[in-house]
């Protein structure tokens, strides 16, 4: 048994509380900002305590809408973000599972070529190749729809890489046993590999959902139709009102709303998330 030193314990709690305060402070300010009116938010110093306009602002962003000309519905933008995040997460996980499976379990010509083709895309963000990518998407007629919003962002190898690591740790005996039972490759994939990778899939889902939800430069470039705008992009646009001061109270309210779904995903899935990540360290 490890000895108990109350002093050390108190100290630990104190440090943790300090850490939480530091992490939470910006969110508190966001909440406070969302609860005051427009004029109050242009007068220094800004408040530290919440005001009484929270529900007024909430209603304002939901009923009147936000962004340019107040005609974008927050609900619709959040829905678009949700579709985008889900499509990216599900799409990427699907194609990555398949390709990782092929690369780990099959020997075939050009295997290594494919392997490297996939892996050089590992970490390069879309921002640095955005204009040529835009041209491709435009030529394929994918502007202003969910395909254009999501498919180009699926082209990255993080997920393939992770599943490859997972599959490599799967004992070879499993495949041998499956073969003896007469299971074909797809059968083996569905019945054995997929269940084994469950936690990893969950962990990846969290990462990719957040990745998709948080995109903004890409949606900004490829959407011209208001019905396709996403929420993070909406926030950025609210900040850019030409020759006018930003409407901080509405921006903060929208920010708060935009944070809720990804935070729910992370917090709700934290156990699986941690387990899935740390098992393969990726």
């Amino acid at each position, binding site marked *: 048994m490890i000895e108990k030193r109350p002093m050390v314990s108190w100290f630990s709690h104190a440090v943790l509380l300090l850490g939480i305060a530091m992490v939470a402070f910006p969110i508190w300010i966001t909440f406070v900002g969302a609860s005051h009116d427009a*004029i109050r938010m*242009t*007068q*220094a110093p800004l408040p530290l305590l919440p005001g009484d306009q929270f529900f007024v602002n909430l209603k304002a962003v939901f009923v009147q809408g936000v*962004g*340019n*000309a*107040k*005609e974008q519905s927050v609900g619709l933008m959040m829905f678009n973000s949700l579709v985008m995040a889900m499509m990216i997460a599900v799409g990427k996980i699907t194609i990555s599972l398949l390709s990782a499976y092929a690369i780990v379990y099959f020997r075939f010509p050009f295997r290594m070529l494919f392997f490297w083709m996939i892996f050089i895309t590992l970490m390069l963000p879309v921002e640095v190749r955005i*204009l040529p990518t*835009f*041209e*491709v998407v*435009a*030529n*394929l*007629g*994918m*502007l202003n*729809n969910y*395909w254009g919003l999501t*498919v180009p962002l699926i082209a990255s190898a993080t997920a393939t890489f992770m599943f490859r690591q997972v599959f490599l740790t799967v004992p070879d005996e499993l495949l041998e046993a499956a073969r003896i039972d007469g299971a074909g490759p797809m059968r083996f994939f569905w019945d054995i590999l997929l269940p084994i990778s469950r936690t990893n899939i969950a962990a990846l889902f969290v990462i990719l959902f957040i990745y998709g939800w948080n995109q903004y430069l890409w949606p*900004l*470039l490829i959407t*011209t*139709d*208001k019905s396709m705008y996403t929420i993070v992009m909406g926030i*950025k*646009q*609210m900040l*850019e*009102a*030409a*020759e*006018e*001061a930003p*409407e901080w109270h509405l921006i903060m309210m929208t920010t708060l709303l935009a944070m809720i779904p990804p935070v729910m995903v992370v917090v709700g899935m934290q156990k699986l998330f941690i387990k899935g990540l740390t098992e393969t360290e990726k």
Partner: protein
Amino acid sequence: MKKHLTKTLFSIAMATAFTVGCAGNSLATTDIQWWHAMGGVNGERVNKIANDFNASQKEYKIVPVYKGNYTETMTAAIASFRAKKHPHIVQVFEVGTATMMAAKGAVYPVEEMMNDAGLKLDKSAFLPAVISYYQTSDGELLSMPFNSSTPVMWYNKDAFAKAGIKEVPKTWPEVYEASKKLVAAGYKGGFSFGWQSWVMLENFGAWHNIEVGSKENGFAGLDTEFTFNNAAVKKVMADVAKGQKEHLFLYGGRRGDSLPMFINEEVGMWLNSSAYYGGIKKQAKFEFGQAMLPYYPELIDKPQNSIIGGATLWVLKGHEKGDYKGVAEFMNYLASPEVQAWWHQETGYVPITTAAYELSKKQGFYEKNPGTDTAIQQLSLNTPTPNSKGVRFGNFVQVRDIINEEMEAIWNGSKTASDAMDDAVKRGNKLLRKFEKANK
């Protein structure tokens, strides 16, 4: 051809993977895409203009699309042009003028388009200071002025009364005097400004009839060179830097970032666009006014005229011929005195035609809102000279960034005004040469 081949190849490859649903266009009207950068309340006004036009006839439908701030809108339009998915009309800010002008294969000059559509464009109806910025050297109008503004000096009347300032400063020495009084009266600073390259350099030049670059500020040729590292510009910069030491000047960032300083009465004077009228009126808890920009009496006896900023509407080539008839009609509608007067009175942008100005006068707008005609008076103070027509330099978006950086280096004390302006000219000229080479 190469592009076409790859396009086809990819289309085949992709078509199997996903079917892209394209809503069939069954409407009888022709859609005309108008990409703009007007956020917030001004975005609502843009929509109103489009809706009113759409209601006035049945053939065409203007579809306004907000594409982010000025640079984002311009880049989006260019990227979409390269992919042949561009809008008919795009709003481009004044710094992008040279880039648009050089793109001869992409741009359909407004005047030519109006003539082709059989609609006469009466250029004499426009304010000279507004359209001179967007004309070629032979006088052809390239783009339709839409939202134009000019820098003015905003001041806090209450603060002036408290600090005992009786006369609104007209010259720079008076601005510093007033600033001293403001600081003595307990204000954090005297004055601040935004869009600093536009206000303190480009407009400073026009206002004092000094060139910013050779070849008529770039109007007369791509082989222009920057010359703003002259004694006058260096002096105004050095004076501001000196004033900053005594808090007479406070720096609050680029663009309109320093607006809160004025709203929160940290400074009593703010040099920035006249288009902030709406925002200031909504937020300021004090009496405010606008006055003409200050000048240096030792450089010029009477100021010349200021130059505009803001944006114009450019028409892009590559659509059906019939579409442009609609674009032309819309431009005609846009320039009508009623629309212009309404836009001007609502936004604080200057009216682009004399008729709109006269109409606003007749409606008693300036009596009800004293000071709102400062901008237009300042713009039309004198007939523009080659130094005050405007500026037209290639890669000017980047050059403005350089000027901003070098000016910031002065304000934070890492460079002297003289060194910073010399460096800015050197770096800027490099970009001018690159532009010249790319557009030969």
